[in-house]
């Protein structure tokens, strides 16, 4: 795999009009590790994740991918050129809650599209690499299917293949299993674990506390646009010092507990 990259966020602020969605968020994402972002709904997890590949424009602060500033030419300076931004995005794969596959293309075309248009590979070479990526997520036999002919879990695995085919150095996941039927969650998490084992830098927004507790190297907890705490899963889950984290975990356990 290509060299895994680190992500460094320093005092990120983000406004939607008068509403402040991110307040002075600073977070280091170590290379080759899995970092999970957790927290209540509306706390700014997606916003922060989307700032990393500049799908969302942050208003103040710095985000650096392996030391390189993304979005602006200089901190607080002019927006970087579209070309430069696209170059940086090649290194950052993203997987969305709603998969966002292109429905008029087959699984193979979905994965090959970026290889052709961004990496400039000839069609045949792009398709060969796309096939390899689909093989890797266990969908080597579904290459000719359109998204409408795939289950949710399969669609999300195609979306992961689409991202990893570009050989990114960081992968962003925004609640990759939240739109899935419970019985399909496992197959997607399995692919993500495999990626993690290969040493990919992963930032995962998730409500799957099990995944966060068992797969993450680091867990960051957000609330109301602030980063409350970041640490090992043990530090966050086993003995959280902050009351807000305890309250969040408590309500999570209440929602997910069931009697037989």
């Amino acid at each position, binding site marked *: 795999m290509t060299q895994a990259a680190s992500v460094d966020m320093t005092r990120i602020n983000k406004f939607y009009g008068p509403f402040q969605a991110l307040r002075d968020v600073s977070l280091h994402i170590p290379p080759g590790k899995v970092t999970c972002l957790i927290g209540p709904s509306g706390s700014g997890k997606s916003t922060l994740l989307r700032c990393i*590949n500049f*799908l969302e424009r942050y208003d103040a602060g710095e985000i650096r991918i392996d030391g390189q500033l993304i979005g602006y030419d200089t901190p607080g300076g002019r927006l970087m050129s*579209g070309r430069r931004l*696209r*170059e940086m*995005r*090649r290194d*950052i*794969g*993203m997987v*969305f809650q*709603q998969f*966002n*596959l*292109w*429905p*008029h293309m087959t699984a193979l075309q979905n994965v090959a*599209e*970026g290889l052709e*248009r*961004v990496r400039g590979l000839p069609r045949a070479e792009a398709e060969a690499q796309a096939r390899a990526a689909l093989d890797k997520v266990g969908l080597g036999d579904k290459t000719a299917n*359109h998204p*409408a*002919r795939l289950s949710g879990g399969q669609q999300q695995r195609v*979306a992961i293949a*689409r*991202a990893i085919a*570009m050989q990114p150095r960081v992968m962003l996941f925004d609640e990759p299993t939240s739109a899935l039927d419970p019985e399909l969650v496992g197959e997607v998490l399995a692919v993500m674990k495999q990626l993690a084992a290969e040493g990919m830098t992963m930032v995962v927004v998730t409500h799957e506390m099990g995944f966060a507790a068992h797969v993450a190297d680091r867990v960051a907890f957000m609330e109301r646009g602030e980063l409350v705490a970041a640490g090992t899963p043990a530090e966050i889950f086993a003995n959280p010092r902050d009351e807000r984290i305890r309250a969040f975990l408590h309500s999570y356990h209440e929602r997910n507990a069931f009697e037989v």
Partner: protein
Amino acid sequence: MELSVLQQYGPMLLRGFGITVFCWLAGTVLSMALGLMIALAQRYGPRWLNWLLRAYIEVIRGTPFLVQLFVLYYGGPLVGLRLDALPAGLLGLTVYGSPYFAEIFRSGFGAVPHGQIEAARAVGIPEPSIVRRILLPLALVSALPALVNFSIILTKETVILSIITVPELMYQTQRMSTETFRYLEANFVLALFFWGLVETISRLGRRLEARVTRHIERG
């Protein structure tokens, strides 16, 4: 009804129908192309251009085609725009149809889920490729019924070209009826030809729709 007049006027009527079909086809293709350019310019162009195009859309949609055609054909020469009847008619149809097509494309763009565009940006695909490979195909699929519908409306707008002497079907049937006083037969022929044309277009449209949506909808 006395259909024997058709023997004499048949070839002329057929030629007229040929010109009607040609005007419809050329007018539809040209106004659709112009409409698409307007919609793209509104989406990607600067704000002042958006306002300008908005005004163009409102003015053209707010005035009858008949009036537009008169202004173009009889008023055009006053500002140095001297066109023959047929080119003037095609230009008129293009101008008249473009705002409707622009609005259809605009709503087609709106129907493409933003996430699918974002996914393309996240991969690093350049914006022109996103438009060509993702936005346009998906917008076309959702806009197809409306595109076909407006194309059908345009078939009947072509009869207005007769007032600037384009020798299309309406013009020929009017000539036949003033020469023979066979008004009923003339209108019968007119209705029959148009019904045939519209029926053909809507059948083709439904076929095309089934074809382009076959992968997209679950079935």
